[in-house]
């Protein structure tokens, strides 16, 4: 167990080192969410009834959406990095070392989670001068939920990458054709209530919907709301499934 932990730390440090050496990459990864905040956020203010949905403050409604987008776009692509490393030989070189396969996945995924949480903190801090006033405790809890989401998508992304290793080009095809439906059917960008009944019905089956609602409730400070525990539970379940699938794939890849 301590050996596995040691291995995971080693891989975590390896994956994180390029970020620490040139932190500019961290900011670059935030460009997309900031564009959404700057160019999509203001549009929401003009949508009829939006202010009512958001409880009077559209930032409290939209900043959580941007954080979840950060989790989705930041961590679902991580498997592609593995594919690249499989091709160049740097993954193979680590496979010959005694480092455990599951520890490799853990180290890699936790790197993305750490980066995600760091970016989330930055986004929240950046938005404070623009009038974002979230519940402090709620925000801290939402970072944890966000981390779970990152773990889930990181694990799934690795599983997908290994499934696609013969046809690398299919990775992004599969990733984006799963990602966007998941995103629109979660009420992330616009409330699902604006859509037709079937969309709302499908959205109820989307675990991400609950996570989105949970993080929004946390931002508002409505800690007793059912959405909070439902969202946290969904994120936890997703994390368990994602990591399990990722670990299984990682073990099998080294036949």
């Amino acid at each position: 167990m301590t050996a596995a932990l040691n291995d995971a730390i080693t891989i975590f440090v390896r994956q994180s080192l390029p970020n620490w050496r040139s932190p500019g990459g961290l900011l670059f990864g935030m460009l997309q969410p900031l564009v959404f905040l700057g160019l999509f956020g203001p549009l929401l203010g003009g949508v009829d009834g939006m202010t009512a949905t958001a409880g009077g403050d559209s930032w409290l409604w939209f900043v959580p959406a941007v954080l979840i987008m950060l989790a989705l776009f930041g961590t679902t692509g991580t498997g592609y990095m593995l594919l690249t490393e499989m091709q160049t030989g740097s993954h193979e070189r680590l496979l010959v070392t005694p480092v455990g396969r599951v520890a490799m996945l853990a180290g890699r995924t936790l790197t993305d989670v750490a980066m995600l949480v760091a970016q989330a903190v930055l986004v929240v801090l950046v938005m404070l001068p623009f009038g974002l006033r979230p519940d402090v405790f709620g925000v801290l809890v939402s970072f944890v939920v966000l981390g779970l989401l990152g773990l889930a998508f990181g694990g799934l992304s690795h599983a997908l990458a290994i499934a696609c290793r013969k046809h690398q080009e299919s990775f992004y095809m599969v990733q984006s054709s799963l990602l966007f439906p998941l995103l629109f059917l979660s009420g992330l960008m616009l409330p699902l209530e604006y859509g037709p009944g079937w969309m709302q019905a499908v959205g109820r089956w989307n675990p991400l919907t609950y996570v989105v609602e949970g993080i929004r409730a946390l931002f508002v400070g409505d800690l007793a709301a059912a959405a909070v525990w439902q969202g946290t539970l969904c994120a936890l379940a997703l994390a368990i499934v994602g990591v399990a699938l990722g670990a299984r794939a990682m073990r099998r890849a080294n036949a």
Partner: protein
Amino acid sequence: MIRARGLTKSFKVKKETITAVDGIDLDVAEGELVAFLGPNGAGKSTTLRLLTTLADPTAGTATVAGHDIAREPAAVRRRIGYIGQGNGAGHYHHVRDEVVVQGRAYGLGWRDAGRRADELLEALQLTPMAKRTAGTLSGGQRRRLDIAMGLVHAPPLLFLDEPSTGLDPQNRANLWEHVLEVRERFGTTLFLTTHYLDEADTFAQRVLVIDHGRVIADDTPERLKADLAGDTIFLGLDTPDDAASVGDAAAGLPGLHEFVADGTEVRLRVPGGNRVLPEFLRALDQRAVRVRSAEVARPTLDDVFLALTGRSLREEVATATDATPGEADNEEVPA
């Protein structure tokens, strides 16, 4: 150090079973430098992947550095170093960072790993590049970095898969200098694959020739060449009529492989041609054969391969590398 018996690996490719490694037996003693020679797709890399626990054998057993590859892969991994065909360092990772991490992966503490990394970078003349990202290194530097990473835990056994492929002659020579120095200093056992004949010839103590997944020859380069190929003696005669007398005289030479007469040109293959020639010329003198020119050509490992398979390795490599940059047998579809 290595003992394999009946090692076999089959892949299923589109419902067809391809046997990349077909019942290989091999023994490598401590301190040896053994080269695995064969054309692309012969099963060199797959054998290496089996021995380094990167792939599981379909059948057969192997003990590497004292441990069974199937039952104790982790113990094998701790005791071997492996330098694959690709580049081990991540593109965006700093040179020194990667060596330190590699040390950590083998269980060294951060400080020890750091000290070891500095030592190896110094030994492989990479210290000035320590803080650069691996992606900015030249081909030769990257290969030296691979060696540094492969040696970080001072393994008693080091596998190298086509270590010098893609390097220019100067970098190849430089790489070999480092490899041989490592061997000298640490007594490391080296097992490498190559399709460069001259490399196997110059550096290896023992050459295993592999073709279609089977070891078809196993000996020192000198003996392989002498036994399987022999030297070629070229004679220029005064008249074509003498060729028959030369043939009669040659028939008595021990180990004669081949005798070809073409007009006044005669060619014969025989082991130890340089020692045979003076005596042979005297014998021809007694038969009143006038020899105008004589030449001995030493065999290459290509002649050995040609004698063994009827195909030239040089041509196979040239066509195969043009078609596919990597080894065709790298496919990882378990049977």
